[in-house]
């Protein structure tokens, strides 16, 4: 497998955000009350992530290492403002539903984390592949979590009723507690699935991969 395909595919499973590496938890929890919101947030993140990785990998040799985080933040913030204005023009209902979480894409750890860990060290093409893989993985995860919560909490997926007639929606699932519990269950499910896979291959049991430390993008200064 060529390196570019590898960079693309790793975001879809091995380092799938936010289920395998816990990056960008706030939007994951907040906007996934419906599948549609999850998809919309994912699309915005794909745009910002791809553009920021493209720009940062292009000028990575000019950025002085000491102020690189500040540079990344400026680039991301400009892109987020672009997304905000675009959404206000073309997808206003979605913009209103996502509310405060559109400007908060700027502090999404996923974007800063990829900039720091990948785009500042690699060329343009691999960085775009990495961004697309991560972005698509993030979108699929958010849509999946959103669909699950919407189905259990409201009986619909993308607004279409899917459950049987006598189904009683558990409104708990579309509120904040459902977000935490749903994400916890998915993470546990992923762990169980990985254990099953590695046992089938006859390997040793893998260490649980949900590290929280990668989740802030400030690893160097943290020291944990």
């Amino acid at each position, binding site marked *: 497998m060529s390196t570019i395909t590898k960079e693309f595919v790793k975001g879809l499973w091995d380092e799938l955000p936010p289920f395998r590496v816990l990056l960008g938890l*706030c939007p994951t929890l907040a906007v996934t009350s419906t599948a549609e919101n999850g998809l919309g947030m994912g699309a915005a993140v794909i745009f910002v992530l791809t553009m920021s990785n493209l720009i940062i990998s292009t000028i990575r040799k000019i950025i002085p290492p000491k102020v690189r985080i500040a540079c990344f*933040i400026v680039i991301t913030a*400009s892109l987020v*403002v672009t997304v905000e*204005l675009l959404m206000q023009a073309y997808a206003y209902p979605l913009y209103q539903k996502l509310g405060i979480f559109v400007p908060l894409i700027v502090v999404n750890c996923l974007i800063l984390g990829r900039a720091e860990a990948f785009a500042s060290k690699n060329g343009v093409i691999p960085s775009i592949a990495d961004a697309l893989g991560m972005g698509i993985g993030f979108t699929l995860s958010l849509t999946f979590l959103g669909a699950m919560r919407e189905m259990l909490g409201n009986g619909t997926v993308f607004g279409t009723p899917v459950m049987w007639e006598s189904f009683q929606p558990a409104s708990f699932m579309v509120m904040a*507690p459902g977000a*935490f*519990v749903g994400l916890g269950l998915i993470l546990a499910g992923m762990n169980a699935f990985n254990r099953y896979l590695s046992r089938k291959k006859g390997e040793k049991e893998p260490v649980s991969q949900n590290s929280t430390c990668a989740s802030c993008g400030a690893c160097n200064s943290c020291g944990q």
Partner: protein
Amino acid sequence: MEYFLLFISAIFINNIVLVQYLGACPFMGTSKSTDVALGMGGAVIFVTLMATAITWPLHQYVLIPYGIEYLQTIAFILVIASLVQFVEMFLKKAVPPLYKSLGLFLPLITTNCAVMGVAIMVQRNGYSFFKSMMYGLASGIGFLIALVIISAIRERLDISPVPRVFKGVPIALIMAGIMSLTFFAFQGMAA
């Protein structure tokens, strides 16, 4: 009375982590031990207050008069990032004991949605300066309370027989969900 209600509601009824989902990354990342949680919570209260005190005048007296409110995001994040840098440098020089307990967490706070979220939210809700500061302080306290409680629970969970696949973050998330459910009960009390 109005301020008192705002204060209580920002701490309990609209708890910033458990009801509004802001700052979930540090909530999971720094809640492994109570000491770390206390440090992080203290740092968040401090920075939220400072950030609100600076971004409120910036928005009211610079962005609105010049009609450039759409630059809010970029202006706020730059102010917060540089503020955190300055606070770190100042503490290192002037108050070494405080720097020792908070210093480690300051760089993490730049990417904390709670600080940025409070700064944006007080503008969207149209709070006055004093009200904004109250809201910032109360949100910070709410974050500290949630973080300390979950860290205490996680310390106990570490020595409890938890199913293998739930170990670590999954069980912590489910505990957070249950905590969030309890905080939802405050909504019934306020109504």
